[in-house]
């Protein structure tokens, strides 16, 4: 038994801040504010440093020719560009996106909208897949695909799709979970079927978030190198736009040039790194803009 609460003894309230407890609380408040602001500043500084450094190094070499030329046959030579890598990256990641996004969104819908055994199993497999190192995925595709059909852009796409899939599922599921029950009920109450509610009400409401999730997966795939070494191998000599053949990608070219030790090659690698960041940025902005236009004009 605790004593019942009774009103405090009548006393003029102190509003001047002279109370020692209050002073301590103010001090703690200020200390925490300073601490959090410092941590945030450090985080932003690291990010800014990476961006500025890559931009500074990349801009030394980046020029129009970088987007139209292939690298010189001898990496020690100055000049040339990553045209074949840019085309390869866009094609390989494009195919991987086309494979992984529909499957990933469908899996996220299964997890969130149809909870049960299937959803729980999908969720578990997703968590396991997230933790698989990308080189292992590359080795898996090597064993199953490359040993039979040889190195190709398509094999790289399959490996990247497997890497993107859990990211798309997680990002989408997170966004679907945020869509209020009230919207689903409003749709149900109009006599709209559950499937139609998901397609026409829930997914559009989550569209911006899903786009962000997909773009994170795309960005990750753009930078993946290890699985591509085992699947598409690279092709630095000429522009190859046929995904059934060996292809180069930006990440492979950056890797290849960065490890040579030649200053000329490393300059190209920095320019390639900056290009990679720019491509991801442009794709992200484009995706957000199209998403918004779709939302406003769909009739």
């Amino acid at each position, binding site marked *: 038994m605790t004593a019942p609460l009774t009103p405090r003894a009548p006393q003029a309230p102190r509003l001047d801040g002279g109370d020692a407890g209050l002073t301590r609380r103010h001090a703690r408040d200020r200390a925490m504010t300073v601490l959090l602001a410092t941590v945030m500043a450090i985080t932003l500084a690291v990010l800014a440093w990476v961006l500025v450094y890559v931009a500074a190094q990349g801009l030394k070499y980046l020029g129009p020719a970088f987007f139209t030329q292939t690298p010189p046959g001898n990496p020690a030579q100055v000049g040339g560009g990553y045209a074949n890598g840019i085309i390869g990256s866009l094609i390989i990641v494009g195919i991987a996106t086309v494979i992984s996004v529909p499957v990933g969104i469908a899996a996220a819908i299964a997890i969130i909208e149809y*909870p049960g055994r299937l959803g729980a199993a999908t969720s578990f497999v997703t968590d396991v897949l997230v933790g698989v190192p990308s080189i292992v995925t590359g080795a898996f595709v090597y064993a199953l695909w490359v040993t039979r059909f040889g190195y190709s852009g398509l094999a790289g796409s399959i490996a990247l799709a497997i890497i993107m899939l859990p990211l798309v599922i997680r990002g989408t599921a997170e966004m679907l979970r945020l869509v209020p029950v009230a919207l689903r009920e*409003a749709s149900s109450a109009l*006599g709209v079927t559950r499937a*139609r*509610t998901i397609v*026409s*009400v829930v997914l559009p*409401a989550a569209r911006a978030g899903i786009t962000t999730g997909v773009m994170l997966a795309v960005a990750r795939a753009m930078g993946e190198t290890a699985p591509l070494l085992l699947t598409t191998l690279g092709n630095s000599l000429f522009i190859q736009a046929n995904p059934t053949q060996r292809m180069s990608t930006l990440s492979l070219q950056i890797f290849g040039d960065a490890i040579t030790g030649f200053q000329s090659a490393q300059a190209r690698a920095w320019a390639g790194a900056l290009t990679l960041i720019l491509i991801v940025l442009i794709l992200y902005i484009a995706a957000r803009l199209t998403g918004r236009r779709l939302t406003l004009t769909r*009739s």
Partner: protein
Amino acid sequence: MSLTDPASQVPSASPQPAPQGTTAGRIEVSGLTASYRRRPAFTGVAITMEPGKVTALIGPSGCGKSTLLRCINGLHMTVPGASVTGTVLLDGTDIYSPGVDLVQVRRHVGMVFQRPNPFPTMSIAQNVAAGLRLGPRQQRRAARLDEVIERSLNQAGLWEEVKDRLDKPGGSLSGGQQQRLCIARSLAVQPQVLLMDEPCSALDPVSTLVIEGLITELKKTYTVVIVTHNMQQAERVSDVTAFMTVNGPGEPGQLVEVASTRELFSQPAEKATVDYITGKVG
């Protein structure tokens, strides 16, 4: 009216009021018990809701009045673990009998919620037309959307305020306007019954009065059932009032009495009703 055959549900171009004097939209609830994961929210409820009248459900929090409302359009069953026993007859058809599709039932029994919930990605016009656009294919093709949108917004008393900005997002309206938009959205699918779950509790007094005036207008065409915490509101808008109560937390709710609103507030038959409406409990 058929609840099982969507093909026969092709509406005319505009939300046509049910002809005067018909019984379309009569709700008869009997022996109804609704549960969440085997835990009953209320037991043994019997009540009839007549077309052309407003039935108010009042009672303290947790008495199951919202759940009762959600049983009338089967929305209760969309909650995982939910179940019902007993019958809910909509014009003589038990909506919980096998072979009845609850999705189809909801095209006859519309619902307005406590908080205005327009679809955020849709314009005002698209919100109103949502039930038709997302409905069965036959309806989508047969309906002349522009007319339905104008008719429904007129019925909800919103047309004059929004006719020049139908392509603006539904969320750009004020709270009271959003709630009337939700009413228009429900009316667009031409239900016979309109359920309202505390439709004014998130609104300011002026918007509340507008909605109450609207309810009085709508009852000429629809069976209206309204859950409210506000007894003055029940007195103002309803013809029949049902009082529900609950003995304690976790206990199932009970329907105490149903009477004409005037009678229930002036000469309640049960002591529990007297205590509640005089403010002794709840």
